[in-house]
């Protein structure tokens, strides 16, 4: 009896040590996703994309021979709360790196928290110019989405007069400041520029101004529900006959809300669409639906960006032989990684990548053109 008791104690202790050992052999990576708040719609696809990336990284041997484990936290909250959530994952859970898919206000708060103490890959489309130590950005910036696309569209659709409309905050304003330059260079003119508060749910007066301006192109930097409402109303007035539309944040969910009836001549520019037909993109989509089912949250550029973030982090970690920021900084510049978007190259903390122009006519995206290795003008010096 005594012996058996001892044996049980030993085996219990032994398995505890084994378990602890196994846990130590894993690198924890904090993945900051918007489960709640206005971007909550993108929570599930972001989580899935991160999980898929982790599975692929682990199957390929992990980071420096260690398997990775994702620790998710909700950052679809005000910045101060997001900082608390990230701090918990960092200090209490022991995360050694972070991937973030959230807004810029949260990013600013997080760079203030991390202060280069832990690698941090920021993944969504954003206005550019974030240059902290240990911060790497995979998302598209306005120059990437517009520099090749505006001249191409102006030629293809014979557009000359642009109307710029967006929500009233820095991403649309920065985007439009750049757009003016590209439109000028291509021989066009800007006939109107307008910013709407987030609370606006009716767009009649803006549509009236667009009609009066005689614009034949509309650049849309409205976000989420505002973009859906605007585009629905735009088409109901028959303005799709007058002007093409180009959006830099119209992804699959937004297009679904706009609907097939209202998407005539609606273009979108981004680094990822589920409609990309390259082998890498198709393999990615297949793995995604195999892993999460056919009914899983639809793929879109924001959710998918988390995959790119992890792939870049794995590449950085494996090249540096460590996840220490000081070591990563030595190898970061010029490093390349593969993703469903194509080949990405880290240049000035930002990723030079393929940009796709898709046409949403008929309610589903169809890739019109792709532009390889587009570098970001907002990259860091």
């Amino acid at each position, binding site marked *: 009896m005594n012996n058996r008791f001892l044996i049980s104690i030993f085996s219990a202790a032994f398995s505890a040590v084994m378990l602890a050992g196994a846990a130590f052999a894993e690198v924890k990576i904090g993945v900051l996703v918007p489960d709640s708040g206005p971007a*909550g*719609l993108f929570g599930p696809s972001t989580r899935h994309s991160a999980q898929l990336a982790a599975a692929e990284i682990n199957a390929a041997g992990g980071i420096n021979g260690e398997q990775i484990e994702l620790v998710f936290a909700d950052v679809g909250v005000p910045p101060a709360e997001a900082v608390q959530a990230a701090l918990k994952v960092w200090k209490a859970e022991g995360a050694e790196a972070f991937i973030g898919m959230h807004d810029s206000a949260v990013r600013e708060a997080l760079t203030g928290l991390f202060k280069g103490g832990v690698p941090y890959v920021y993944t969504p489309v954003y206005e550019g110019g974030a240059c902290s130590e240990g911060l790497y950005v995979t998302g598209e910036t306005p120059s990437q989405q517009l520099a090749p696309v505006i001249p191409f569209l102006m030629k293809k659709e014979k557009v000359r007069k642009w109307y710029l409309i967006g929500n*009233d905050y820095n991403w649309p304003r920065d985007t439009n400041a750049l757009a003016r330059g590209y439109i000028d260079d291509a021989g066009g003119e800007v006939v109107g520029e*307008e*910013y*709407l*508060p987030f*609370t*606006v*749910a*009716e767009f*009649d*007066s*803006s549509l*009236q*101004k667009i*009609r*009066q301006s005689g614009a034949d192109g509309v650049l849309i930097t409205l976000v989420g*529900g505002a973009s*859906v*409402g605007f585009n*629905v*109303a735009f088409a*109901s*007035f*028959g303005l799709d006959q007058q002007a093409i539309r180009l959006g830099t944040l119209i992804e699959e*969910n*937004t297009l*679904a*809300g*706009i*609907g*097939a*009836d*209202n998407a005539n001549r609606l273009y979108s520019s981004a680094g990822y669409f589920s409609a990309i037909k390259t082998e890498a993109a198709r393999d990615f989509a297949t793995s995604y639906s195999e892993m999460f089912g056919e009914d899983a*949250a*639809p793929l879109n550029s924001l959710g998918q960006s988390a995959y790119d973030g992890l792939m870049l982090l794995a590449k950085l970690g494996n090249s540096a032989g460590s996840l220490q920021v000081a070591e990563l900084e030595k190898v970061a510049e010029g490093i390349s990684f593969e993703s469903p978007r194509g080949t990405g190259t880290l240049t000035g903390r930002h990723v030079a990548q393929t940009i796709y122009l898709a046409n949403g006519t008929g*309610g589903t995206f169809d890739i019109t053109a792709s532009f390889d290795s587009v570098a970001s003008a907002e990259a860091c010096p």
Partner: protein
Amino acid sequence: MATLLILNILWQVSVLAIVTIGLAVVFGQLRIMNMAHGELVMIGAYAPVMTSLLGLPGYANIVVCLVTVGLIALLMERLVIRHFYGRAFDSLLATWGLSILLRETVELIFGRGYQSVPQYVPGTFSISGTDYPLYRLVVMAGIIPIFAGLYIWYRKSKIGVEIKAMVENPSLAQACGINTSRLSAGCFIFGALTAGVAGLLLAPTIRVEPMMGLDYLIRSFFSLVIGGLGSFEGLFIGVGIIAGAQSTLGALFNQTYGYLFILILSIVFLWLRPDGIYRRS
């Protein structure tokens, strides 16, 4: 372009009127500050989505809308609302809770994403050289007889008199043989159904998602604050001022000014004239 501005104002007034009528009935007659009113509009807007999921033809939209919203309103009234009649502030908290419950339920069933509702009447119609969405013209034309009918019915019918009696003096009304419990329930469900129909009508012209209800609640509430409670006249004055001011200022300057004006106006009214412009005698 003046034609376009006038049509836009008329459309905004119509939209706000059909959304606000239900809130006016429930708030004005039952003293229930229904914070879940916007969610009832939202559920009405989901009716076409449910119809197509059920595989029913398009004209079943209205039936699906009335049945769904009616059942939800009945449950709300029987389980929660009836305990709060005449307690405006308590009802505000209770219905706020209900609004969250309704939003989360819709999110659970349909997901968080945007739903697309096909246009019921596509195309535009040219009025003095201005292309205007045909569907809007149809809705505006349809709303006038509906409101006229409601106005006459409320003025002339026995139920209209009973409602007035119940609002004035519930115990006396009960003593006179009016079943106030059933009458209040009827009133609440009627208000909810108008919200549902408003949602159904608006669905092809707006974004449809679980959070959309909030847009409508706030402007409806401001309309009632400005116009005054308990009468059709007050309702239309309030709706006209809110929607008219927002459209006009939005067209002349920009939308921020329109929104600012409404907020300032509402604060001034709450402060200096809390009964609104059209006071009930």
